[in-house]
């Protein structure tokens, strides 16, 4: 982590913060893109509250996915759940070919419009990368380490919490990062089914043919995604560093 | 592995599947009846959705599958059981549509309901489990895909499902369906081809010049992180500007809205997996093999084409798999900016709250992505087989 890159991060974060709290300061940049006196800055709601509800949707869903996926991952790697392990692997492999948008589209007929189908789609799709990485992380813990833990008289519960999960943590975190990034995108599309989020700005731009809206919506979403990805990557690196190098599972 | 213990033993996964089947049969509606395509539907249980004789036949077949799943452990038997389930329940859905639609009523719609989907899920799980246990080789899996495709094609072509709402949606727009299908494939495959043309040389360059590597991959990583609709939106501005100022660009069909930004965005998304996997693939070619090739007097070009690329092929193909599956899904979003594809039906359907129209777009998308994944997984395995022999 070099100085210029962390400077760039801070600058990007500051820019994003200023933009969503006081977008009017930037009106001059978007005016050339508008036609027929259309507004240059999104005026159908506060960017800040849209950003916040976008984040709440994404992180709420991911949190739930993480809890469920890690529990499932732990279950199928215990002796009692081991017979489900091969099938689980095939299912996550198959499941991830499902386009996240299709999950969203199919959720609408089941639960109707609004935040619900988006949350369901994010939750369901978010399960897959986290579950897969939990499996990978837990099954790649060195058998030597486990043998030593057992040999010293650690109970299965202690082995799980003090050895297996900490060692699998970087890989699990990589799964969480993948889920969050995918979910940020899916949540944006969620605006087409009336979920509150930053997609609204882009959709509004598309409907009113206002390129300025499309661009600012796109930029805010993009910047948010890149910053969150970067932040999660940093956490992951920190978790991996003391284990002797960055696992680098992406 | 000699678990030759005699006696009855419940299979736990089979038990779960049996419970799912039970729930689907007795606690969930089999079909939804609607007076027209956009009103909300009324649920119909299996026994009300079919003539009594047929209903009890389907019920018996599904229960038989449940019992077999729970008690029989041999994978081929379980696969056959799942086949029986599909063969009994899938055509029955079409019959239910005919049975529930009043004679001569052209507005009424019948769609599969939760119970039907739960049955499909249960049988699908059984298939996935038996195929996993059978450890099919690549050809076996391709054959399984072919059988599944043939089964669906048979149901579609025979007209067994023609009473279903989703087929009626299709019939109402069969021309545009195939046009959008073509557009969908064009978006996904066109961007993939472009990404291969650009990505393979870039990957090679990054492999040869390590200084270039981390920078290139970082930039592509950032691009990959940007959500699709945001990237589409961002690209609309420069492409629109290009179309407005360069007549040639406009003449080539480049516009701010439509397929062009979608194609460019999908292309950009495709670059990371292609470049990264090319770098990794070339990087993992054993140094000793390259050294040996050099020792035998192969020219750099011959080394690349005869040694390095063939050995890197499985990893590069894995990148192609990621790209193809991802693009087939993302191409759906292109419809939002007028780029066409199956997304057209999805977003139209959402707009009209016509559920079956949504499915008309979503189901082919899922099927395509799934088929692409199976085919490329098989290709990867075959490439692996040849490069390791």
């Amino acid at each position: 982590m070099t100085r210029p890159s962390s400077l760039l991060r801070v600058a990007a974060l500051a820019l994003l913060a200023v933009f969503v709290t006081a977008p009017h300061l930037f009106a001059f940049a978007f005016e050339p893109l508008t036609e027929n006196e259309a507004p240059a800055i999104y005026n159908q709601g506060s960017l800040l509250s849209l950003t916040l509800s976008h984040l709440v949707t994404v992180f709420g869903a991911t949190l739930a996915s993480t809890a469920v996926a890690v529990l499932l991952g732990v279950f199928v790697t215990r002796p009692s759940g081991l017979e489900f392990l091969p099938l689980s692997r095939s299912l996550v492999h198959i499941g991830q070919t499902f386009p996240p948008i299709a999950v969203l589209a199919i959720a609408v007929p089941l639960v109707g419009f609004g935040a619900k189908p988006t949350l369901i789609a994010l939750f369901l799709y978010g399960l897959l990368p986290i579950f897969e990485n939990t499996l990978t992380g837990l099954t790649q813990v060195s058998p030597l380490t486990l043998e030593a833990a057992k040999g010293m008289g650690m109970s299965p519960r202690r082995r799980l919490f003090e050895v297996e999960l900490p060692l699998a943590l970087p890989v699990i975190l990589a799964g969480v990062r993948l889920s969050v990034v995918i979910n940020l995108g899916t949540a944006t599309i969620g605006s087409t089914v009336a979920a509150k989020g930053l997609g609204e700005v882009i959709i509004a731009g598309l409907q009113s043919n206002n390129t300025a809206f499309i661009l600012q919506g796109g930029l805010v979403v993009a910047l948010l995604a890149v910053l969150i990805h970067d932040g999660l990557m940093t956490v992951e690196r920190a978790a991996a560093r003391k284990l002797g190098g960055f696992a680098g599972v992406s | 592995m000699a678990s030759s213990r005699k006696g009855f033993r419940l299979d736990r996964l089979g038990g779960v599947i049996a419970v799912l089947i039970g729930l689907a049969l007795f606690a969930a509606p089999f079909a939804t009846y609607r007076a027209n395509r956009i009103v909300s539907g009324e649920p119909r249980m299996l026994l009300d959705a079919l003539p009594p004789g047929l209903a009890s036949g389907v019920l018996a077949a599904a229960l038989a599958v449940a019992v077999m799943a729970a008690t029989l452990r041999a994978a081929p038997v379980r696969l056959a059981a799942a086949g029986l389930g599909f063969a009994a329940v899938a055509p029955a859905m079409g019959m239910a549509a005919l049975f529930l639609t009043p004679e001569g009523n052209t507005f009424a719609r019948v769609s599969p309901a939760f119970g039907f989907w739960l049955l499909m899920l249960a049988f699908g799980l059984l298939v996935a489990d038996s195929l996993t246990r059978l450890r099919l080789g690549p050809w076996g899996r391709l054959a399984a895909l072919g059988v599944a495709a043939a089964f669906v094609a048979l149901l579609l072509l025979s007209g067994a499902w023609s009473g279903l709402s989703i087929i009626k949606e299709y019939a109402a727009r069969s021309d545009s369906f195939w046009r959008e299908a073509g557009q969908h494939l064009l978006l996904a495959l066109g961007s993939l081809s472009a990404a291969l043309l650009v990505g393979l040389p870039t990957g090679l360059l990054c492999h040869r010049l390590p200084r270039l590597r981390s920078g290139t991959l970082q930039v592509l990583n950032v691009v990959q992180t940007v959500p699709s609709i945001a990237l589409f939106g961002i690209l609309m501005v420069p492409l629109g500007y290009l179309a407005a100022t360069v007549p040639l660009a406009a003449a080539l069909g480049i516009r701010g809205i439509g397929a062009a930004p979608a194609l460019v965005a999908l292309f950009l998304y495709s670059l990371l997996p292609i470049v990264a996997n090319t770098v990794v693939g070339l990087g993992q070619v054993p140094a000793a093999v390259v050294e040996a090739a050099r020792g035998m007097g192969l020219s750099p070009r011959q080394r690349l084409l005869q040694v390095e690329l063939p050995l890197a092929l499985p990893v590069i193909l894995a990148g192609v798999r990621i790209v193809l599956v991802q693009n087939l899904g993302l191409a759906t979003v292109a419809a939002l900016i007028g780029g066409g594809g199956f997304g057209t039906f999805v977003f139209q359907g959402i707009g009209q709250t016509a559920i079956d129209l949504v499915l008309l777009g979503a189901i082919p998308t899922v099927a395509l992505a799934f088929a692409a994944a199976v085919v490329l997984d098989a290709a990867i395995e075959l490439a692996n087989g040849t490069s390791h022999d």
Partner: protein
Amino acid sequence: MIEIERLTKRYGNSTVVDGVTMRVEEGSIAVVVGTSGAGKSTLLRMINRLIEPTSGRVLIDGQDTMSVPEDELRHRIGYVIQGYGLFPHRTVAENIATVPRLLGWNRKRIADRVEELLDLYQLDPAEFANKYPHELSGGQQQRVGVARALAARPALLLMDEPFGALDPVIRAKAQDDLLAIQRRLGTTIVLVTHDMEEAFHLGDRIAVMDQARLLQYAPPAELLTRPAEAFVERLVGSAERPFRLLSLSTVRDATEPGPASGEPIEASANLREALSRLVWCGRDALPVAGADGAVMGRVSIDGILRFGRPSR
């Protein structure tokens, strides 16, 4: 004292350990040798119940191991494996503190114990306590592995190829360290290896296993002079035999009165080393010096060679 009685392990139709009976005295080192797949590791792992025996039993100081909950049993038995299995996410100090923590020792007592062990293993606590395993050399990892096993002062230490991953120079040093520490703490050790040299160097008694059976369990010299079966004879190496035998006796045993010229040899050196010195410097005899440096006699080639034969 450990008493192993008719210990047997079967998987399906194959017997991995077949009715092994042996007894390891308090404070001694028993080395189990044999080809790979002979059942050595399984035997060892049945002592701390990482593998449950099919039949037979193990008594530690007269107590049947089956009468103790398995985790509690393992808290009392040190265990070192090849590759050590250090916890990569924990520092050296945390690794060593594992069992004391499981036993609920207080913080102060744990810290003192960790420091004591690091000192014992010549690892400067200030430098090493907060390092992670991947920052250590192979030899350092090995020492941490043994220190971790000794942390809760177990009376019994089980070691499965503990030096297998070390290069020859470090291995010899690690073996000497283990001997020194074992003499000091009086720990009983059962060690599994396939390296005969190591077995003769460390073992008070050596158990030879082949195809699940214990062929012979005897002091090293007896193994050389009276091998119970042809396999034992082959394993101890017919060509190596005299030299192994020599390495079991010290110069002190072969010291005879009389003068000799040249650099004196220490009385504590083994006879194999002494012979090697004599051959190298081309003399028939060398003076012998005690621990205080005073010459106490001489050792001669003829005198040494008598120790390299079975009938003495």
